[in-house]
Structure formats: structure tokens, C-alpha cells
């Protein structure tokens, strides 16, 4: 052993290099989280009107309003994050629009999705079943697309080994689904405390949503497992990216926040008898919602992190 150590040539050490910033940081991760939660809650909102599951009709309003409000914060974040905020308009000007840039489609989606939601909500308020359903379908496609594209934006960077996977949009969508539900449950819980007894949403509905959330968690774990397989059995960059970046610098958001707090603990809550307990569900919802934020952090920044030394 000692012999092996002394004869082993030391590999090179980098003694000087330029430094690089992580170009997409916290504002972007918050934005991904909000877009996701918005899309997730909108999916729930559409259960009643679009898919005709009657018992979901009462919460459609709250869910879509939540989706709209979350989405209203998004452009503000995005625009102020630009180096030149005024120029956000270029993203939609015909002479500028660049069809191969995922960001270009994304910006169209981000602006059309809230509009379609508002139209949908308007018909919901007017109780117009046909138009609510029609606009709801459009809106739900846009909702999913809006979030799907955030995955694509990250995915189409061949140099970022952690992000460059076709699973990216699915991971994003699953995360969106569960965090959307989590947030919705929290909001409905608060709403129930405020509004008249008659207007309160029935807890059995929450329990049901919590079960959907549980299925989402399972699916998310499955996707993460696939990711894990790829990084582990993939090339050295992927493996090291997982080992030194995710398990190193992003250990807290990755391992603790997302996996343990955001998935494993809620999963056990939701399969245990606690799933019938109001506070159990609330706790699980809360954990899922913040857990997904952990994923947004490592996903956005972790993928760029290793390269800042290259």
C-alpha cells in the first residue's frame, strides 16, 4: 500500500484558471418552481370542468386563481432577471423571434398560458360549461407546455451533463404536479379557515388529492431513479457530476430537501394511517412543495456548477 502510494504519479492540479459565473441562478430556480406549481394546480382545477369530475368543481376557482397569481409573479422574475429588462419584448417581435431557441417558444407560452387561463376562469364564473371545457383544454395544454419547455430549456444544453437528458421535461412536469397539489392543499386549508362553513371544501377531496400526490411522488422517484441510473452508469462526467456536485455542494437541496424531505417523508406519511389525518396531509403537502424547490435549485444551478471550473 505504502509502495503503491509513493510510486503513483500525482495527477495534475489546476493552479490557475479564469472564473465563471453560474449564469442561471436563484431567480430562475424560483421561477421554475412557480411555473411548476402553477401548472400543477391548474391541472387540478381542470378536473371538474374539463374532465367532468364533478366533486372537483368547487375548487376549480381557487386552483385557477392560484395558478394565475403564481404565474403573474413569473414574468416579473423573468423580466427583471434579464440583463436588459426593457428588451423582453424582443422575445416576441417577429424580426427577432428565433425558432430554434427554446426560450423563444417558452416566452410565447408564458404569455399565452395566463391569458388562456383568464379566459377559462371567466367562463367558469359564467358557468358556461361548453366554453369552459373548450378553453380549459387549450389552457391545460398550454399549462403543460409551459412547464414542459422549462425542462427543454435545460435539456438542450449538451454540455451540461446533469441536465442533458430527455427525462428533464417529465421530471419537471411530475414535480410540477405534486408541488401544485401540495400548494393547493395548503391554500385550501387556509381558505377553509376563512370562508363560511358552507363554502368549505370537503376534506375527503383533500385526502383524494393527497393520494394523487402520493402517486406523483412514486412516479417522481421512479424518474429520479432512472436519472440516477444514467448518471451512475453513464460516462465519467455524469458520475462525477452526481458524486461531487449533487452529493457535494448541492447535497442539501438534492439529498435532504428533495429526496428525504420532499419525497420520502411525505410518501411514508401518505401511505401510513396519517393519510387520513388532516395535519398529516398538511405536513406532507408542505414538505412536498418545498422539496420540489430543492429539486429546482440543484437542477438549475448544479448542472452549470462543475463547468465553472473548466
Amino acid at each position, binding site marked *: 500500500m505504502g509502495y503503491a502510494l509513493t510510486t503513483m504519479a500525482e495527477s495534475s492540479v489546476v493552479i490557475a484558471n479564469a472564473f465563471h459565473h453560474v449564469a442561471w441562478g436563484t431567480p430562475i430556480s424560483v421561477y421554475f418552481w412557480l411555473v411548476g406549481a402553477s401548472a400543477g394546480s391548474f391541472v387540478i382545477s381542470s378536473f371538474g370542468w374539463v374532465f367532468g369530475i364533478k366533486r372537483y368543481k368547487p375548487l376549480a376557482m381557487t386552483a385557477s386563481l392560484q395558478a394565475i397569481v403564481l404565474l403573474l409573479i413569473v414574468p416579473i422574475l423573468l423580466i427583471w432577471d434579464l440583463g436588459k429588462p426593457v428588451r423582453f419584448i424582443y422575445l416576441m417581435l417577429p424580426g427577432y423571434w428565433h425558432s430554434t431557441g427554446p426560450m423563444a417558444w417558452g416566452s410565447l407560452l408564458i404569455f399565452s398560458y395566463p391569458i388562456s387561463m383568464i379566459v377559462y376562469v371567466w367562463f367558469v364564473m359564467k358557468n358556461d360549461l361548453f366554453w369552459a371545457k373548450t378553453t380549459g383544454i387549450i389552457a391545460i395544454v398550454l399549462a403543460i407546455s409551459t412547464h414542459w419547455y422549462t425542462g427543454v430549456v435545460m435539456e438542450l444544453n449538451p454540455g*451540461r451533463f446533469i441536465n442533458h437528458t430527455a427525462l428533464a421535461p417529465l421530471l419537471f412536469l411530475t414535480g410540477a404536479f405534486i408541488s401544485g397539489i401540495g400548494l393547493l392543499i395548503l391554500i385550501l386549508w387556509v381558505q377553509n379557515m376563512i370562508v363560511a362553513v358552507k363554502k368549505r371544501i370537503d376534506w375527503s377531496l383533500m385526502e383524494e388529492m393527497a393520494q394523487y400526490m402520493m402517486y406523483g411522488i412514486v412516479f417522481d422517484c421512479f424518474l429520479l431513479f432512472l436519472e440516477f441510473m444514467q448518471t451512475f452508469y453513464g460516462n465519467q462526467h455524469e458520475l462525477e457530476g452526481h458524486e461531487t456536485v449533487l452529493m457535494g455542494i448541492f447535497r442539501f437541496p438534492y439529498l435532504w430537501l428533495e429526496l428525504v424531505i420532499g419525497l420520502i417523508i411525505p410518501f411514508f406519511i401518505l401511505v401510513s394511517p396519517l393519510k387520513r389525518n388532516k395535519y398529516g396531509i398538511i405536513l406532507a403537502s408542505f414538505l412536498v412543495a418545498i422539496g420540489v424547490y430543492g429539486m429546482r435549485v440543484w437542477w438549475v444551478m448544479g448542472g452549470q456548477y462543475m463547468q465553472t471550473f473548466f
Partner: protein
Amino acid sequence: MASDNNKKSSSENGKTETKNHRRTYGIQTPGTKGIAGTKRYAMVVDLRKCIGCMSCVVACKSEFGVPLGVWRTWVKVSDKGTYPNTKRMFMPRLCNHCDYPVCVRNCPTQATFKHKDGFVLQRYNRCIGCRTCIVACPYNARHILPAKRSDKNLPYEVVDKCTFCFHRVKKGLVPACVQACVGGARIFGDLNDPKSEIARIVAGETVTVLKPELGTQPSVFYIGADWEMMDETHSYNNRTVQLKQEFNDFKRNHVVDGYGDIVEGESTMRQVGKNMGDFLNSIPHKASEVVKAFKKLLFE
């Protein structure tokens, strides 16, 4: 005089050429390697001759007034081996002016484009500073310009990168870094011209490019590159403590749009919080920029 030149060159171009040009910054650009009638400017860096003098870095920085904390070109240095069999290696880096530039494909506003003579260039007036291209570039070749720089007439808070010294090459000069290169390690020319020095070297010597597996088709070729230096993961895992400390200083003190830096050794989530604080701090400045822009639009 110079603008005359431009007019002439555009009229000389003729119709077919014009079409060609449009394509260069529309959808994914066709490569220019080996295409008759186009040039493909490229650089060879002969690492046997690179002495790490950083003349290229200073020449480039002075040429463009590049602000502190960002680089169009830089030189990576590493030590290899155990005492007394130790070697030092230098590797200059810059934009590869890829023939398949990921940055161009991902830019939402066509602000970055591929010139038909091989340059990948920026249009500062189009760039919105979204930094998609920075994330897309596998070589760290791009940077966002800080809000404050020496010459306030030069662009700021947009993305910039090496231009292969377009303005000099157009005037028949080699790029500034090639001009300055003490070791004579940097060689520049037209790869499509079989008689050029660079075409001879690329054809005749063993050259490598960075991350060939990504298929970006770089136009910067290296002679004598060390695999460890070319390897991203290796660089990440083998940094000196001093470099880590320096990098942390950099992250603490050099705040530009992006807000994604994590200081190593400090709580990650606290850093995330600090980033958000920096972001919120930047809003008043940006708001004043917006007001300025509207004033300009309305009153000038």
C-alpha cells in the same frame, strides 16, 4: 472611410451572397468548413510554444476594454507530476467559433449568429441578456458584461465573447491575441484556403479540439494538449486550495446578472438566499435603466 467600405462590401455581395448571409443567423447555421466561396477562420494553439505569459489575455482585454472578472480569453495553468518530475502546462482558452454552435441555436432573439466566414458574433443591440447562450456553450466562452465598465459607451449587461477580432481581421490584421502572443503559439488563418499556414498545420499536425464528443465542431485547434487539462471533470476535482479560495472571493465580490454562485464551504441554501437578495438589490438599478430607455424612446 470605414463605413464606405461597408457599403461597398454589401453591394459587392450580390444577391446570392445576401441569401447566404441571412441563413447565417437564422435557424441553425450550416457549417462553413470546406464550403467553396466562404472562409473559415480558425486558430491553432500550439501548446508546445505557449509559455503562459498571459500577453494574449492582456492584449485582448485592452483591445476591447474587457471588464475585470470576465474574460474573452484566458490561460489555464496546471502542474503535473511528483517532485522532482514536475511539469507545468498552459492552455489558452477562447470561444471556439464552433461550426455547430449551440449558443446560436439556443439564442431566442438571433442576437448571436454565425457569420459566413466562420465567426460566431454578437449583436449587442439585440441581446436581452437572458444568458441562455452562456448556459448552452459547453466551453464557458461567454460572459455577461457587468453593469459598470470603464467606457460607458460600450455595451453592458449583455452577453459578450471573443469575436475572433472580427474588426481586425476584416482590416487584414491578425487578432490581437495572435499579434501579442510571445511564444508564437497562436496561429490564425483561413482553413478553407488550402495554401494557408493554418490549413497546412491542421492537415499535417496532430491537432485536437475540446470536447469533440459534443459535435460542436470547434474552430480552435490545439497541438500538444494534455488530456487532463482538456477534461472538465478532472479540472473540477483537481483544483488547488488557493484556487478555491480565490474563486470564493470572486463569487462574493463579483456580482453580475445571474445570481447563481454558491460559495463553497458556506451553507448552500443561505447562498441561495443571498443570491435572491442580490437579485432584489439589482431591481432599482434595472428600473432606472428601464426609465432611461423609455425617456430616450419618447423624448429623443
